[in-house]
């Protein structure tokens, strides 16, 4: 494909931006900096009701009651919550989406702090991608801490058949966000396995966390680290198995050919 005009213009744009532009290169290259970001999933009204309702979640859970209380706090009527397309599930989505979006500024703060830390400089940049992924997944888990005693209820709602596609999509976006923020730009088939791995580990750790009573959720972090480690081991093993199968298949075909079969 010939370099498109848009790409050329983007490159020119970066040159003009100079130093700031160089920072941008760390971000997704398919982002457009010439257009405003697409509107968020919630409009102003939904945001007003949901953000007010979210403050009632620790006490009342992800329920219709919390929504009604939120609507009242925001100056709406009891019936106004009917306009939210999925009722309590909208509240869960609000949690998932706001916490995912909060991950980007958090990750900048974390890695900048590591860079600035005394000792060997630029530690944040030399950190391995796997370690960054673990750090970010842990950061995302920590942001569940305020509502963790209500999270089993939320998981039950998310597992309802009509909500499963939206929940899985949100999980996929989270995995994507974690890999993007960790600076991984690989576009080979491992794209899928990486995201699958971090999704599985994250979901398992989240479930573990709902029953974790250890101070600072230390056991959850150990659990997360074990899962990520295991899956990288499994990934290596699977790679070995695939290599072995490929070799065997080729050898089998060659044996058949040597017997005179036209393959």
């Amino acid at each position, binding site marked *: 494909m010939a370099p498109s005009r848009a790409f050329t213009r983007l490159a020119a744009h970066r040159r003009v931006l100079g130093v700031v532009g160089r920072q941008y290169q760390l971000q997704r290259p398919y982002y457009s900096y010439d257009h405003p970001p697409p509107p968020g999933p919630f*409009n*102003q*009204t*939904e945001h007003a009701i949901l953000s007010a309702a979210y403050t009632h979640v620790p006490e009342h859970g992800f329920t*219709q*009651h919390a929504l*009604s*209380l939120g*609507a*009242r706090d925001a*100056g*709406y*009527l*009891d*019936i*106004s*919550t*009917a*306009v*939210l*397309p*999925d*009722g309590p599930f*909208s509240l869960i989505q609000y949690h998932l989406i706001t916490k995912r979006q909060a991950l980007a500024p958090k990750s900048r703060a974390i890695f900048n702090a590591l860079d600035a830390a005394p000792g060997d400089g630029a530690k944040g940049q030399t950190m391995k991608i796997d370690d960054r992924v673990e750090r970010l997944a842990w950061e995302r888990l920590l942001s569940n801490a305020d509502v963790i005693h209500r999270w089993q209820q939320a998981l039950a709602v998310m597992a309802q058949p009509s909500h499963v596609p939206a929940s899985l999509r949100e999980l996929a976006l989270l995995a994507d966000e974690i890999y993007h923020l960790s600076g991984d730009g690989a576009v080979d088939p491992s794209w899928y396995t990486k995201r699958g791995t971090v999704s599985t580990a994250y979901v398992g750790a989240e479930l573990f966390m709902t029953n974790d009573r250890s101070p600072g959720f230390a056991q959850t972090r150990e659990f997360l680290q074990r899962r990520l480690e295991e899956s990288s081991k499994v990934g290596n093993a699977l790679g070995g198995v695939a290599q072995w199968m490929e070799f065997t298949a080729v050898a089998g075909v060659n044996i058949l050919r040597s017997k005179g079969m036209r393959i």
Partner: protein
Amino acid sequence: MAARPVLRTAVRAVRVLPQSGPSRSCSSSRHVRLFSTTPRSFKSPSDHATSTSSSTDRTTHFGFEDGISEAEKTERVAGVFHSVAESYDRMNDLMSFGVHRLWKDHFVSSLNPGSSSSIPPKPQHILDIAGGTGDIAFRMLHNAHTIHRNTSVHVTISDINPSMLAVGKQRSLSLPPSQQSALSFLPADATALPASILPNSIDLYTVAFGIRNFANIPLALREAYRVLKPGGVFACLEFSKVENPVLDAVYKRWSFSGIPLIGQLVAGDRDSYQYLVESIERFPSQGEFRDMIVDAGFVVGGDGYENLTGGVAAIHKGMKPLDG
């Protein structure tokens, strides 16, 4: 269809007569509304003369016929509905395989009237437009009184046709007395609601399988906007467009061949059910109708609609903004 002009003449003749009560004559029933039997015939005395005075000039459509004046549509949609109640439930069950009950249940439970965060609960006033037979209103009372134990919910059933309201009244007699006392009946034209419904006084405005037959839908939406409280919700259950092409082909075949046939066999009235399927076909798609709701000033959440049974029917909801 040779009998059609004859039938129409007969209907016109009947229409002139003053109608005192439910007529049993099937031949006089020309146009039947599916699922909610609320013809738009009688102009109630109202203060909104501006909206009715010009309705003779503007044109609209009636089924696949174009160039009908709004007044004539109002009159023709009305036809004679009084005999409908008898075959109403049977016809709806046959045509939708009973699914219309599930749609209505889902519609009401998704609105969840009567749920309140305050103790004692705040009173709610619900206006059920085109709700003559009480299908939606009774479900809402059940939801509020039985599920939420909230007796401060009042439902006004409004319909343009007094005889349909009489059917609803008759049916409401089997409700518990507490629910009966929370009901009131109001004959009114949805495009010009009477002064007894104050502006900014309604919590929830519902219309189920009725808005398709309104002579002027944008006007009815603006009227809904006017009477709703800021934060109040407009909710509409209506036939819509099937999005899956395979299901759509089956559905079209059923609606254009099956439904008129059933109408002929069961209700003895093919033309009415022919109008019914034509009016469904003419009704705007989910997205277009959502845009009409937004144009009237409402805010919608998410897509603004929810498809039922793959889009055979759809629920549209809109909220009057606080600064509205």
